[in-house]
């Protein structure tokens, strides 16, 4: 029996065990939506913007480890997905976007709502397809899921011309798949692995730099085992948080531009860096020439292009970090009794001194709410048992610093692209993946307005997502840079006119709370968690607060600015327009 392309599309999703997709309708995908109308097993979450749909699919994927799927129409629907796709691409998230397209005969004619979305997304997808024949559809969908989820994961786009989804074909599902030009390497090179194990046992001052790849490969147990077995302290990139328990004695928290003093010092003084699934972003390395001057670098990554892209590497290992770590641990254990604790004693003591010298702190305050205090409270009240998403800016950095992530896939944040407006739709996606978990978006007053329309999505699906807005009435991170590096000329960073977030929430049928005093913070968080509804919490926080420590852009990562140097007489703040 022949099926229509639209029906084949839906059958394919079921074969891939998809039960939730995010999307938005329009002319050329109406036939697909018509089939969805009767389908009991496949639920479409109607977002209020296509960007929201892709971020939600991305949040669903990050939280669950399963691919996220979005379906949008041609032209503006497709172009609206570009930020979401680029975001998923930078953070290696398996998202599959289906875009409608004008009929094949009209492609290239500047037809109504035509956009060359395959051309537009070529550099920000792992791969993309234009389906030209309905007979190719099921194979292409199969390949798309395979490419998106294997190797270094990433987004894939499939462009579906209208005549393809309305055309008819037999539904054939290719169980086996092989793409001759695509063969990710999972097993690391034996020789290199042995070298790595040797270096780890020889090093006096080793450190593990754990990145997002650890979470993507599910290698967090192996990182912990290696760290504990060989007594190696662990620092994490923003994407790597949760890959090693933040509360662990060997954890140094995040490194880099807003990393902890002790993480950055440890990196700079180390004699061996074991970089695992990290790509040495400039926010991590600071000035590359001054990065870890005394360290040998072992770099384990599934993507060969990540290795030696930004920093020199002594021992490159291409492979799946989980498998490679298992091999390294095995070799270390075969080496027999090594007095690890003895060997590392001096190094771990030095690190402890750094930890005591400059812990992460902020000014305690009884009058004004400090944003870090809000995050600490959320952490305390939830005991860390929540999925946290963030927006971008100071809110994101404070979350990375003050919330201790013990488990992988509990921090969903836009690392590579730094997309304001990511956190709220991502929280919606995560909540759909885990209906019973507590999901909180820690937001800025600027960022939340970039996808605030998704309140409707959250409310209509009765999603109890919480949004904690750290409302400083500024594009705070921009303001911070202007204060520190642009002679306090606050050019267009003041958000003079902000909506009343409580009323906005209420207008959409959600719940809104506001805290203006530190004493109101805790009760509001508790109430918000109790209510099984979408809640906006508007925390009026100290607008002058800055994220510290800070490595000025282009500086070496041990050249940090600290809070106490701030105690200069307070200057009057003028918003320069």
């Amino acid at each position, binding site marked *: 029996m022949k099926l229509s392309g639209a029906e084949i599309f839906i059958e394919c999703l079921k074969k891939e065990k998809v039960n939730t997709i995010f999307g938005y309708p329009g002319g050329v995908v109406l036939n697909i939506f018509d089939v969805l109308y009767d389908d009991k097993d496949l639920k479409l979450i109607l977002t209020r913007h296509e960007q929201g749909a892709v971020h939600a699919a991305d949040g669903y994927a990050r939280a669950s480890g399963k691919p996220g799927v979005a379906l949008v129409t041609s032209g503006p629907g497709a172009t609206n997905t570009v930020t979401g796709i680029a975001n998923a691409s930078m953070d290696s998230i398996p998202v599959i976007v289906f875009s409608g397209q004008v009929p094949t005969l009209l492609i290239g004619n500047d037809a109504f709502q035509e956009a060359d979305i*395959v*051309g537009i997304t*070529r*550099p920000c997808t*792992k*791969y993309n397809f*234009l389906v030209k024949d309905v007979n190719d559809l099921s194979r292409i969908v199969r390949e798309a899921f395979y*490419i998106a989820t294997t190797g270094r994961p990433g987004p894939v786009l499939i462009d579906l011309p209208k005549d393809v989804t309305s055309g008819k074909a037999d539904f054939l599902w290719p169980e086996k798949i092989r*793409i*001759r*030009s*695509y063969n990710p390497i999972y097993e690391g090179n034996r020789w290199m692995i042995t070298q790595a194990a040797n270096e780890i046992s020889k090093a006096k001052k080793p450190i593990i730099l754990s990145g997002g790849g650890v979470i993507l490969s599910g290698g967090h147990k192996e990182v912990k085992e290696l760290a504990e077995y060989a007594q190696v302290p662990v620092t994490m990139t923003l994407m790597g948080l949760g890959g090693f328990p933040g509360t662990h004695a060997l954890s140094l928290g995040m490194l880099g531009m807003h990393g902890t003093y002790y993480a950055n010092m440890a990196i700079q003084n180390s004699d061996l860096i074991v970089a695992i699934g990290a790509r040495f972003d400039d926010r991590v390395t600071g000035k590359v020439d001054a990065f870890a001057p005394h360290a040998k670098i072992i770099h384990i990554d599934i*993507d*060969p*292009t990540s290795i*030696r*892209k930004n920093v020199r590497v002594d021992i490159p290992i291409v492979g799946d970090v989980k498998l490679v770590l298992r091999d390294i641990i095995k070799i270390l254990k075969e080496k027999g009794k090594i007095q690890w604790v003895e060997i590392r004693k001096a190094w771990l003591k030095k690190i402890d001194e750094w930890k005591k010298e400059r812990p992460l702190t902020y000014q305690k305050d009884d009058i004004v709410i400090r944003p870090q205090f809000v995050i600490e409270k959320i952490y305390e009240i939830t005991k860390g048992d929540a999925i946290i998403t963030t927006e971008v800016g100071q809110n994101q950095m404070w979350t990375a610093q003050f919330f201790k992530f013990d488990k992988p896939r509990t921090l969903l944040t836009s690392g590579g692209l730094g997309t304001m407006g990511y956190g709220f739709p991502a929280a919606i996606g995560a909540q759909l993946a885990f209906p019973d978990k507590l999901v909180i978006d820690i937001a800025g007053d600027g960022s939340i307005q970039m996808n605030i329309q998704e309140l409707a999505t959250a409310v209509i699906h009765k999603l109890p997502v919480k949004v904690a807005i750290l409302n400083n009435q500024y594009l705070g991170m921009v303001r911070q840079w202007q204060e520190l590096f642009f002679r306090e000329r606050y050019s267009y960073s003041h958000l003079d006119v902000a909506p009343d977030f409580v009323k906005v929430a209420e207008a959409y049928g959600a719940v809104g709370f506001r805290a203006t005093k530190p004493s109101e913070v805790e009760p509001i968080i508790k109430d918000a968690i109790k209510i099984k509804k979408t809640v906006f919490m508007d925390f009026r926080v100290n607008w002058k607060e800055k994220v510290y420590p800070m490595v000025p852009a282009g500086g070496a990562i041990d050249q940090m600015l600290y809070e106490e140097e701030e105690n200069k007489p307070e200057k009057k703040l003028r918003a320069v327009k």
Partner: protein
Amino acid sequence: MRHTISVLVENKFGVLSRISGLFSGRGYNIESLTVGETIDPQISIMTIVTTGDDQIIEQITKQLNKLIDVIKVTDMTELDHVEREMVLVKVAPKQEDKAEVLRLAEIFRGRVVDSGLTTYTLEITGDEKKIEAFIELIKPYSIKEFARTGKVAISREGVKKK
């Protein structure tokens, strides 16, 4: 340093754009690029001439390999190989220079593939050095049109001595 990289790719639409997009998007430079079918019509071969230090060339080959449609990448520069390029050049020499132009073509083992009342079109094939030398020498004879294919390359089978 200059490298000649040979890339086997799936013969599909959009592949050229993926390759050229990789170079433009990452700021690598393409000196020449040729594309043609191989014996297997499903596979094309591209020969790319590019320059960069070792780290950049390493990135270029890795990035090319990472593209889904790329089957095989070979940096010919690292191998013993043969390179060829062809130019077609239409010159309009003065009457008294005509003999010299023909002689040049002969010295470079070129051919006259077309001639008009006042012009000759010459075809020269060779490696880069030869082509460059020929261009230098033919320049004074009033070049009207000039076309150059870009390089193709193939590895040599070494004769192993035992």
